[in-house]
């Protein structure tokens, strides 16, 4: 049980980085970005290829994946801001293009990392005294570091302008901010984080698969929404913390569902359905609550 909880927490942090990326587009920029389903795999694909073919350092692979994700996000941003394609369609187009590109990078639909040195191997060797929690400590540390950097960034002059772009675009234009560039930047940052998360998850689970990104947007949203409903704060530090908490809770819930769900007829393949239902419920609760209040009030 304990080791399973540790695994759930490890995943919570590894996927939490992707959730932070989704948070940036969905909450900060208010841009429903579907690129992430592709860029998550791009990160995994690049890291896996680098590890298997060139024996690159596992941490360096993360950085390269981040860069590739940034490019993918920037493409979506440019499709939207420069070519005037609607936000959803721009994301979908990037996602579909990435599917082909990811296959090109990988050369085949699935790469196994069992025979190369991954981040997990490096960490377990370097921190062997910590035993079973070594990887968890490193993943938690890395994710928390990213959270702190993001927090600091969102308090800078530039970061503040990025937040205002999502909050009131017309207003921040009249304060001299080029919101088109801001959106491109925000999408790049977001997808960079998502790709980095993909690279982590691939190394963690020992393989990269061209289909592993399906639903990244939904699991990311699940974390953002679950965390946001538990920790209601407008302070940026608490907001990013809530995303990580949401990701941890989501992964623990998934762990329980996979382990004990069979008792109620749950199968692993139902996971995406259930996750989407959770997101739907969380998204409609405010509307339903309002409608109920109105009904009660008018009677």
């Amino acid at each position: 049980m304990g080791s399973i909880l540790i695994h759930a927490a490890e995943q919570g942090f590894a996927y939490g980085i992707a959730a932070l990326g989704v948070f940036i587009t969905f909450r900060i920029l208010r841009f429903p970005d579907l690129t992430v389903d592709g860029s998550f795999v791009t990160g995994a694909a690049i890291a896996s290829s680098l590890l298997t073919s060139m024996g690159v350092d596992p941490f360096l692979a993360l950085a390269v994946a981040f860069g590739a994700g940034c490019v993918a996000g920037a493409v979506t941003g440019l499709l939207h801001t420069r070519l005037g394609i609607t936000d959803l369609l721009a994301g979908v187009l990037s996602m579909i293009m990435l599917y082909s590109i990811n296959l090109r990078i990988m050369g085949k639909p699935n790469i196994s990392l069992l025979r190369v040195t991954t981040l997990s191997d490096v960490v377990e060797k370097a921190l062997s005294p910590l035993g079973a929690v070594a990887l968890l400590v490193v993943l938690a540390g890395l994710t928390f570091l990213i959270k702190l950097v993001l927090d600091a960034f969102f308090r800078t002059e530039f970061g503040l302008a990025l937040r205002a772009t999502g909050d009131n675009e017309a207003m921040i234009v009249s304060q001299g901010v080029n919101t088109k560039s801001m959106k491109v930047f925000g999408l790049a940052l977001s997808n960079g984080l998502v790709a980095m998360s993909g690279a982590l998850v691939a190394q963690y689970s020992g393989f990269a698969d061209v289909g592993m990104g399906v639903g990244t947007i939904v699991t990311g949203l699940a974390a953002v929404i679950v965390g946001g409903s538990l920790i209601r704060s407008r302070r940026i530090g608490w907001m990013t913390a809530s995303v990580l908490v949401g990701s941890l809770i989501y992964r623990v819930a998934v762990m329980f569902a996979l382990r004990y769900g069979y008792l109620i007829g749950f199968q692993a393949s139902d996971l995406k359905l259930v996750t989407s239902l959770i997101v739907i419920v969380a998204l409609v609760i405010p509307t339903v609550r309002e409608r109920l209040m109105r009904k009660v009030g008018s009677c």
Partner: protein
Amino acid sequence: MLDVQGVEKRFRSGADEVLALAGIDLHLDRGDFLTVIGSNGAGKSTLLHVICGVLLPTTGRVRLGGVDVTCAPAYRRARRISRIVQDPMKGTAPSMTVAENLALASKRRGRTLRPAISRRRRAAFVDRLSDLGVDLTTRLDDPVSTLSGGERQALAVAMATLSCPDLLLLDEHTAALDPKNAERIVELTRAFVEESGLTTIMVTHNMDQAIELGNRLAMMHKGQFVHEVRDEAKRRARVCDLVELFSRRHVADDELLLDPA
């Protein structure tokens, strides 16, 4: 300072074309304060939008300080032009705090990776707010969405004036407020403009305000300036004269409409 030459603005095309600006020529010297009145749909907001770059004119040029800015994007003109709009919701970022909004307004270019709100800046914000007589100094860390419309508009005034622009555009910026708050905001505006000698265009439906403030007054009708008074003549202008002018215009239009030819 500001030169608007032969500006026309058409919305849509074909049968339902709207000629919102029908040939506008306007020249403001540094320190001019122009008030603009005119009925709904006269094109006042459209003119301000063309000046600040939110809309591009169909024909004509806009020059600012001798530089042709007709095609410059709005965000770039915003480095020199401040704007306050009618809707208090539109001029501020609602989910960000008062201090964050002020920080956004205190620098219009070259935003860096330095912390936006340093201790020194906070102190400067407090000074600025109390200079303006805006009672928001204890609410620096509250989200703007928790402020009332009047408080938001006061904040908008503080934000519009924080970075010392060359030109201030006010589009009925007190229209959404109750009379008392409207008066306070007008007072704030007047004090600031007088003290800094800022070039200003103020659109208003309040004739008293239009007469009281500024050194120039213009009336717009159907996308054109139809009457302008300045300095001495403006000081002598009375509300009843303006109303008279107004109604004469409308009568003239009605006659045209009734004319079978």
